[in-house]
């Protein structure tokens, strides 16, 4: 039974695309058939993060308009053969997306894939509402700071009212994924704590991804962090989140600073 996921947030720059790529690769790692769809028409990025930008021929809008067939537009990842990308068009805008077109594509993908992950654009306009429209499960990416949390709250409201599932009287499964978590800054009160975020959003937690240079490093070489450095702290957190998505019970670990003793001595001296 295929699962349609939407990775969404409301606010931009919180890590939706990074998380889509990392979770997609983590799920595909075990052999599940995964497709990630970039809904950010006009500002596409997912192709870059997956290192597929030089292989884009057809895109989501071409398929909606009937210019290309869906299999022609799907790009298979070079490292993981069960991971596929359906890129967005860079030359069009979100008005080119139609509800019927998206519905047809999702239905067709449901036949072939185990996981369909929709990477939502920021905002609450057409691109974002169509990305979440047919989702069974939503991952709300949130940074531990107030503006991101309030935007997430707004998105949760939309997930409960504007999705096809909500209109049928059902509920979209919702999970919070906290990204860019910085344990020492949270300890100093410079960031909201995990408990504050969960209390405000009253939605279960899928995972906590620590702030890390590894994430940027992976994006720059066009690789999901879960493939580029699977043993790094953010990659392990994404692997745990992927296992929770599959229904496994994995204990939640709040990331703490992992610095060597020399580092600690050094920072004390500097301070």
């Amino acid at each position: 039974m295929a699962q349609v996921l939407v990775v969404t947030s409301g606010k931009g720059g919180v890590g939706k695309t990074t998380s889509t790529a990392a979770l997609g690769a983590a799920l595909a790692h075990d052999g599940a058939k995964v497709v990630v769809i970039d809904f950010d028409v006009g500002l596409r990025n997912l192709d870059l993060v997956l290192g597929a930008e030089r292989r884009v021929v057809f895109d989501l809008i071409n398929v909606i308009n009937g210019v290309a067939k869906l299999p022609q537009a799907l790009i298979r990842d070079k490292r993981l053969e069960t991971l596929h990308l359906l890129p967005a068009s860079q030359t069009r805008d979100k008005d080119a997306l139609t509800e019927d077109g998206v519905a047809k594509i999702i239905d067709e993908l449901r036949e072939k894939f185990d996981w369909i992950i929709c990477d939502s654009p920021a905002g609450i306009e057409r691109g974002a509402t169509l990305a979440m429209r047919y989702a069974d499960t939503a991952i709300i990416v949130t940074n531990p700071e107030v503006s991101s949390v309030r935007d997430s709250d707004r998105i949760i409201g939309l997930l409960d009212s504007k999705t096809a599932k909500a209109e049928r009287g059902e509920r979209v499964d919702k999970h919070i994924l906290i990204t860019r978590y910085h344990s020492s800054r949270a300890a100093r009160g410079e960031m909201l704590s995990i408990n504050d975020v969960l209390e405000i959003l009253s939605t279960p937690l899928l995972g906590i991804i620590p702030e890390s240079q590894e994430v940027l490093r992976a994006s720059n070489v066009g690789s999901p962090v879960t493939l580029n450095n699977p043993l790094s702290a953010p990659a392990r957190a994404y692997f745990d989140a992927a296992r929770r998505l599959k229904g496994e019970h994995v204990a939640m670990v709040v990331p703490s600073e992992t610095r060597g003793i020399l580092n600690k001595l050094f920072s004390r001296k500097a301070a």
Partner: protein
Amino acid sequence: MSNVVRERHSLMFRPRSYMAFAIAPQPPIVDWLSALDASLGRSESFFAGQHVALDLSAVNLSSNAIGQLVANLEERNIRVLGIEGVDPAKWQPGLPPVLRSDRVLRISEPVQLIAPAAPTPEAVRPPPQKQQPASLMIEDPVRSGQSVVFMEGDVTILGSVGSGAEIVAGGSIHVYGALRGRALAGATGDGRARIFCHRVEAELLAIDSYYRTADEIDDSMRSRPAQAWLEGETLQISTMN
């Protein structure tokens, strides 16, 4: 209707029945209108403030002709609530909604428009039904950007009210979670309404038209159970423990 709940489908359906006069034009319409004018001349304010449904089963009109007829009636201060006895395909934007006539409760005795002892509008209203206490209960959190408007009475929220969300109630507001958004109680001018919440972190509290913003709420109250009420023209807030 003053009862609007945006973006929360589960809250929107509140079945309610209204008393309406159904008027049924007879062809030719021109003659029927002049007969109506003659009657109205004798009882000018008969339709004032009344709900009127237009029963078109006796005539066969195009969409445009229906629009024209509705306009003619509006010129006579007859506001048409809905139309019935018409093919729904003829409906077009701008026309009153098509009523499903199988749901219409028909009252067998037609009301006489010009009877000497003309029933006043009050006299034909149905006897008041057993009054339901007017309150709205919401079991989920109210999210940022959502607005719950309930002018008929009290609103009770079991979850939290997010920053950027808004609750407007004709009566009092009770929030059993954290109140982080705006709460406007007594919105129909009821100065006796109050606001109760389990944790006050509100952006704005208002009763009747008197309000306080977050800036004007004492910091010592923050995150504590609190109530707000109106004393004269001052909004008072106190903690409850």
